[in-house]
């Protein structure tokens, strides 16, 4: 080790240390920059003191204030939130039941069940939007009615495409569960419900929260399906932004978009934190802590 002082070698990257290679780093950096630049630009220009928002003129919060006072926007935001909350609650319940049944039971035609449950994830959004529109109109679904009932069509559509995602998340969490804990619980006399409540549920709770947050994000962000199922009185936040974009591009649109971005990022980060969290009572295959 003393000879280290005399040796002028700099350690070369090993053949598999690709990430230390210059050209790869450059490529990743360039791609990341190009991915984020437009978004950063959008956020920055939401503070632009210029109505036509083409050239930077100065810093201001004015357009955020304008957005705050824009009744249509606020209404749309409240709608989005309401739909998201209700959709999240129901999707989480449905998604959990699907995850449980796939994890727990063997039954005939199970692969078909699994595949069908995955359909909402795979089907192109436009097809689903069209289907919901056709369905609600042919069935004569009441689109009037007091708030929040008039949001029911959109909410139902959201639940349909959210719950499979929740199911996927919870299934992933369940795959790490050591069945011996469940068997021990039954051995000690607990019935199905008690075992679920005291043993299984605490384990999947982080997955549940993560799945719920995922459903929330999907619902709040959804544009295409909502576009087909919403009407003039039932506008959601993304749909409102779309009409603002079509109409005129002012920093107000940027401001509204930035708000949505912030909500999305925070919710997603929370979801990921929960999913990987070991703060909660962790019953992994390696045994209890």
């Amino acid at each position, binding site marked *: 080790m003393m000879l280290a002082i005399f040796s002028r070698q700099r350690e070369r990257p090993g053949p598999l240390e*690709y990430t230390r290679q210059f050209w790869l780093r450059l490529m990743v950096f360039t791609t990341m920059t190009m991915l984020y630049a437009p978004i950063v*630009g959008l956020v920055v220009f939401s503070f632009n003191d210029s109505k036509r*928002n083409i050239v930077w003129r100065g810093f201001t919060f004015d357009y955020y204030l304008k957005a705050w006072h824009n009744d249509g926007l606020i209404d749309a935001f409240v709608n989005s939130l309401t739909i998201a909350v209700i959709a999240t609650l129901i999707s989480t319940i449905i998604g959990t039941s699907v995850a449980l049944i796939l994890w727990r039971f063997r039954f005939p035609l199970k692969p078909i069940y699994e595949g069908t449950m995955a359909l909402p994830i*795979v089907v*192109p959004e436009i097809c689903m939007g069209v289907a919901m529109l056709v369905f609600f109109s042919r069935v004569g679904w009441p689109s009037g009615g007091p708030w929040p009932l008039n949001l029911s069509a959109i909410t139902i559509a959201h639940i*349909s495409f959210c719950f499979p995602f929740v199911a996927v998340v919870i299934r992933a969490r369940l795959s790490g569960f050591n069945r011996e804990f469940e068997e021990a619980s039954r051995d000690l006399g607990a019935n199905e419900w008690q075992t679920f409540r005291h043993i299984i549920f605490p384990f999947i709770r982080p997955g549940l929260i993560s799945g719920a947050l995922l459903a929330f994000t999907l619902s709040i962000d959804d544009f295409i399906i909502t576009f087909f199922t919403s009407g003039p009185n039932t506008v959601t936040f993304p749909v409102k932004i779309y009409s603002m*974009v079509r109409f005129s591009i002012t920093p107000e649109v940027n401001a509204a978009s930035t708000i949505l971005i912030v909500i999305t990022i925070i919710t997603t980060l929370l979801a*990921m934190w929960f999913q990987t969290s070991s703060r909660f009572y962790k019953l992994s295959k390696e045994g209890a802590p």
Partner: protein
Amino acid sequence: MNNWKDSKSVFITTFLPGTVWLTAFFLVPLGFVWVMSFGEKYGIIDIVITWTPNNYLRAVESIYLGIIWKSVWISALVTALCLMVSFPIAFAVSFAKDKWKPILLLIIILPFWINLLIRTYALIAVFRTRGHVNFGLEWLWEKANAGLILIGLGKHQFLGEKFQPLAMLYNDFSVIAGLTYVYIPFIVLPIYAMLERLDRSYIEASLDLGASQIRTLFSIVIPLTLPGIIAGVILVFIPCLGSFVIPDLLGGTNSQMIGNVIERQFKSANDWPFGAALSFLLMYVMFGVLAMRSLLTVRKSEMKV
């Protein structure tokens, strides 16, 4: 795993919610669309199901066939571009030091979570005539022009009289660029997941036997990560095929894709049966792609690691 008969009550409790909802609010609506695709319009509002194949026949008329074809090659091009960009990134993250991996992954995936509409809108500001890219190019042009004037070549106007901005919006280019921009994060994840599962010894063995890095990439890494690549391709190709927001906002009237046509049938053109037929054609394509993929996985499943 229990047999369903062992705890029938629990099975029923967990079986009902999902099945009932999916049937009532997903399968049935799809069924409605399928039935409607065989219908006809009578008057402005009424639609009668006459079981006519006309809608499908109309869909393969030359105008629409042209748009369908265009959607297909745009989607294919976008998928290829996404693949080329994502592979090095997935590689870089997979071979990074363990403590950096989650952070790098998060940074790549984050844009994926931002609303599609917002990301598209952000691109408008970048691509338009008086947008960021053109501003940047204009700045460069002015600097270069000033340089030329400085060395006395000003009057020849090598760079033209004025700066000509690039027309990057409202054409095929913007649609392709926009779609690629939006769908890159989708492809990174499956490829990354597959790369993580790749036993590093295979790469080392290939190098040890004398193969170059490039040869190793094509002979060893890609064949062994193929399932991930295929998954990623499907995750991009199908949504791309059905997209309408991006062609709408970035492409304008010059770049129509099948999604735009469908949307129009349900809004302005008000020809629901035709729109239904087109939607279902899209679904058939999707099923076809998925079927091909399962055939490929069945053949390759013998070849487990």
